[in-house]
């Protein structure tokens, strides 16, 4: 494994430890009874994440922990690492977040049309017309199902809603 890949292997337990640590700090500000379970669970998770961190080190103890508690290791992670292009992964994660933002700001109808068009077009830029048709069809289907059949008032969006 190259050094960068080995480094990224430690991110996950470190992130869990950071999350658990921050959670503990916040939990301690709560009344005694309200903090009992959150504090206990955060400590346990922190300890487990520390064990996970240790298991990823190349030390004898780390290897023993890995063998005993995570015998499957990182085989599937390695497979994913080798096949996925970083740019495509970033887009894959960014698109739902962009869709979420579009839903909140521009509403369901506009957000859906924009998201479906962008996601399909980004996958195959040679067929913009296909992306356009599918985006229009998906938006119409969403409108028909939720507004037409279920009689719900589709969320207009924070920006567009204030304009309407």
């Amino acid at each position: 494994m190259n050094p960068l890949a080995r480094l990224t292997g430690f991110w996950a337990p470190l992130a869990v430890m950071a999350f658990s640590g921050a959670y503990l700090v916040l939990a301690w500000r709560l009344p005694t009874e309200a903090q009992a379970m959150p504090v206990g669970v955060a400590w346990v998770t922190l300890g487990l994440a520390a064990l996970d961190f240790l298991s990823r080190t190349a030390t004898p103890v780390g290897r023993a922990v890995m063998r005993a508690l995570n015998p499957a290791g990182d085989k599937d992670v390695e497979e994913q690492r080798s096949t996925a292009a970083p740019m495509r992964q970033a887009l894959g994660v960014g698109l739902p977040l962009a869709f979420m933002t579009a839903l909140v700001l521009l509403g369901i109808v506009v957000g859906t049309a924009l998201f479906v068009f962008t996601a399909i077009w980004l996958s195959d830029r040679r067929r913009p017309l296909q992306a356009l048709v599918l985006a229009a069809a998906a938006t119409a289907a969403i409108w028909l199902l939720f507004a037409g059949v279920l009689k719900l008032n589709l969320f207009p969006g924070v920006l567009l809603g204030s304009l309407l």
Partner: protein
Amino acid sequence: MPSVWLSGFESLLHAQELVFLCLGMVMGLVFGAVPGLGGPTALALLMPLTYGLDSIAAMALAGGVMGAVPMGGSISAILLNTPGSAPNAATCLDGYPLAQQGKAGLAIGAAASANALGGLIGTVSLLLVLPISKELVLAFGPPEFFLLAILGFCMVATSSRGKMLRGLIASGFGLMIAFIGFDQVTGASRFTFGIQYLWDGVHLVPALIGLFAGSEMIKLWIKGGTIAGDSSGVKITRMGGGLIETFRHMPTVIRGSLIGTAVGALPGVGGVVASFLSYTVTQQVSKDPDSFGRGNIQGVIAPEAAINAKDCSALIPTIAFGIPGGAEMAVFLGILILHGMQPGPLMLINNEREIYSLVWALTAACVLAGGLGLLCVRPLAMVTLVPGRVLAPLVMTIALVGSWAIDQSIENAVVTAVFAVIGYGMSRLGYPRLPIVISLVLGAGIERSFHQSMAMSDGNWSIFVLRPISTVLIACIALALLITPLRSLFRRTLARRPAAGAQEAA
């Protein structure tokens, strides 16, 4: 007692009731198959519609939905690796690998027949257990519920294919999220950062939609191609073979159904624990545990039998004590109350006819939905041939907008998107996602049980050890935690033996 059973059955045999039963089944199949919708959403949408119906017709409609949802969920779990409802997540573990091997028909056939048999066994168990249900549920107090939930976490972590430690971390992470919102004991607001939406905690259904449907669609979009990988790989053939496989593995069906029945009778534990417990136990007793997760048909049969059996026995705490076994039963409680029935011990006396009508409707739906599901498999299977770049945005759209539609709250869509990214990140970094689901489902219950136990014992922790059922549960937890290290040790010892033998021979 048999006369009451027959009276309940007879009340279903009217055109109107049968029509509503079929309507419920179709709705259940569709809502079950569409990732992220599921039984609670279907029942919640139906609830206002049942208001104009008489109580038997309403029970037929609700029973049809509840009985058919698992079958619909298993279809999407097998074909899309995206469970329609959370309990079907266990079906993904072997159902999806089978679909990738071109054996989707076999898996779906097995799921349908296991569903039907599980439902039948569950009904028989329910009819036998209903009269003595009070004693059964009362034997479990708060300390037992607390320990049972911990056992659920350990079992799910153990079944995470050699990633027990990461499964436990995911459980802890899920519990920390589950504790967001108002504390049930003190009423204190926890980790809400002033966001009103979070006062009720992170909503379960949007989070589930994100974790499963959302993250799978991110993976699919990134991977490209079709869901089946290669369009020629998805063959919906040998559905009859699936039926034969189910009968060949009858002990698995019976074991799964009994596990489902036992777990379903305990409020708050739910179908996820039932399906995973059934899967894990089947894996543990199998002569070839390594084949699980790689397309073992028993990995489909075991959870599917448990899910439907659980649906029948989950009625026990819901009806007898007004304690819903899960989200679906919680919504169903609303339908009972809407029709003037008061869930509790008196309901078993005052509304016997309705109860047994519901039991029969559920049974009929469990059996008939399998057949209906098999008829619909071919069109549903076509979903797997749609290019991922087209399907992923469309399912993601339904997931986020469907999430908003639950209570028309745009924050639900935000939760879904965030959990989709969390789910993808976990999958990418080698952490199982399923323990988070268990944590989100059991989080509130485990904390309530903990506080009740502490109140019962004046803060003495020995209450978790000294009660007989608690002691058994603690032993089970210890066993669950030891399974992975012991199995690893056993494998290494076995691997060393031939090498040592070869050295001696040399």
